[in-house]
């Protein structure tokens, strides 16, 4: 077995999507390195969220290809992509509000066996029960790590925005995907939680999950990413470490006013 896998966690080539006459995503191509945090930034309307929807199967692309784990996944249904190991979050926290925090985390893992109707209902088998309590223990452990253990029986819908985001992160830790795409995780969240989230993202990397982060909050991007991709008008206009982008004229122009500069 040769050294660590250096193939990209995700590869996007020529991704395209139009609505009517408008090209939301127009020949977007990039690679997200494995084992790193890649940022995806760009001004409003750059097509970042649409690109995420296309990659994760929530929208159907008009052209291009997405390679994940050696397979072309464009056009696949979201649950297929998720089961392959690519999980994404959404711009607003999407917890399961009526379920408890603990249930939210436990249900993060899709369990083919026990969610099949027959086995789920009839399964009194010991192995199932054992797996179930090991799972609960794992979930509690993760919640504890995120400081949410005390809230585990609380209805998830009752939590604050920041807490919901943390629950989402806990879910991702539970699911342990190969790649997670975070869609504006800092949106609506108290900046105080920023460091906690950054640490959570670093923990993802440590447990083998590569990360792509879409964000408007540039200091956050600077804090967590090793590699940044800049999109504008539906396509990639620059790539590189965050520092290098400050002086990139294209990037500055795209942001119209130098939000990146200085």
């Amino acid at each position: 077995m040769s050294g660590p896998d250096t193939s990209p966690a995700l590869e996007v080539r020529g991704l395209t999507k139009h609505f009517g006459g408008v090209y939301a995503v127009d020949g977007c191509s990039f690679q997200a390195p494995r084992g790193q945090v890649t940022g995806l930034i760009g001004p409003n309307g750059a097509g970042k969220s649409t690109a995420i929807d296309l990659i994760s199967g929530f929208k159907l692309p008009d052209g291009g290809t997405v390679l994940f784990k050696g397979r072309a996944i464009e056009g696949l249904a979201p649950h297929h992509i998720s089961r392959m190991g690519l999980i994404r979050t959404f711009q607003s926290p999407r917890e399961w509000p009526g379920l408890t925090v603990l249930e939210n985390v436990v249900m993060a893992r899709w369990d083919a066996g026990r969610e099949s109707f027959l086995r789920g209902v009839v399964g009194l088998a010991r192995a199932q029960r054992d797996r179930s309590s090991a799972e609960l223990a794992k979930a509690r452990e993760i919640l504890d790590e995120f400081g949410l253990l005390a809230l585990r029986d609380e209805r998830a819908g009752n939590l604050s925005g920041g807490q919901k985001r943390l629950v989402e992160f806990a879910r991702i830790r539970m699911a342990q995907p190969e790649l997670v795409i975070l869609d504006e995780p800092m949106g609506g969240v108290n900046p105080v939680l920023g460091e906690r989230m950054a640490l959570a993202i670093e923990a993802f990397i440590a447990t083998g999950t590569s990360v792509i982060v879409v964000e408007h909050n540039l200091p956050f991007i600077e804090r967590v990413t090793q590699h940044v991709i800049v999109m504008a008008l539906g396509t990639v206009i620059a790539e590189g470490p965050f520092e290098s982008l400050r002086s990139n004229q294209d990037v500055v122009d795209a942001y119209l006013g130098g939000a990146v500069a200085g």
Partner: protein
Amino acid sequence: MREYLISVLTEGAIFGIMALGLNVIWGWSGDFDLAYYGYIAVGAYMTLVLTVGPAVAPAHYILGLTLPYPLAVVIAVITSMAVSLVVGSIALRHLRGIYFSIVTLGAVYVMYVFAGQYTPLFNGYQGLSGLFDPMGDWFGLDYLSYQYFLLGLCLVLFALVFLFMWRISGSRFGMALRTLREDERAAAAFGRDIYRLKLKGYVLGAGLGGFAGALFAAYLTAFNTSAWSPVEVIVLYSAVLVGGRGNIWGVALGVLIMGLLVQESTRFLPMLPGLGELNTVHPQVLLAARGAIIGLVLVLFLRFRPQGLLPERRFADSEGALAVAPQTA
């Protein structure tokens, strides 16, 4: 009086099963399915055509076998599930919210019209009759004893269904259904095949409906389109709503309350000033008054207590309380 009580309790148990089935689709999957009563009807009709024997002119209906009742019930349930598979595979693929409700309303209306109009199927509006004391002859029961037998049978079956639902509620399958209700997108992002999962829940619920329908046929000894009148349907849905959608105890409570309301209203309504006199002029007035009250109850609950009297219970992590303390190796 005793016979009346037996009859009411038997019907209550059957309604309870119906409500539990509806709860799977409306309470757990979160889809307001108006086609549900159709599956109950299919269950009832199929049970009858499989047990009452060949059609005697001028009656017309399909099959007309004389199978033993339990076998007929099994086939009836399978038929209900098959019909629901057809409706569900269309309605659940792309539709949610009111579009889903409207299409299922259409589906049930089509079923109703066909059952009533297309006489070769189930003898049209006349329907079928003649299912007397199924399984009674196994035990050599007389009329009164049979009433007790049926009551006991229905109560036991209700208890079994309740247990079954309790099992599902706590199972991963049940929880997966509820994630669909809570947030579909997130469920998909975490690996759930929304369509297939909803379809499974839908067919399961319909199967229970068909089962209840089969029992209903035995209780009524007959079935036709007047047995699925709007009142029956609204009472069923109200029971699930009033009691507490998603909570099987709530559903049972709802059936109890709506049952009481329906029974008691027939008793006290004639005593209301004016209503009694009106009823002599227009004989349906009492029934209409009851219907209006039920509708009002439904609307009031939707406004002031949409989660029902017993909201869904949450799994409280008791074990965890002990595991929190010292660090395990």
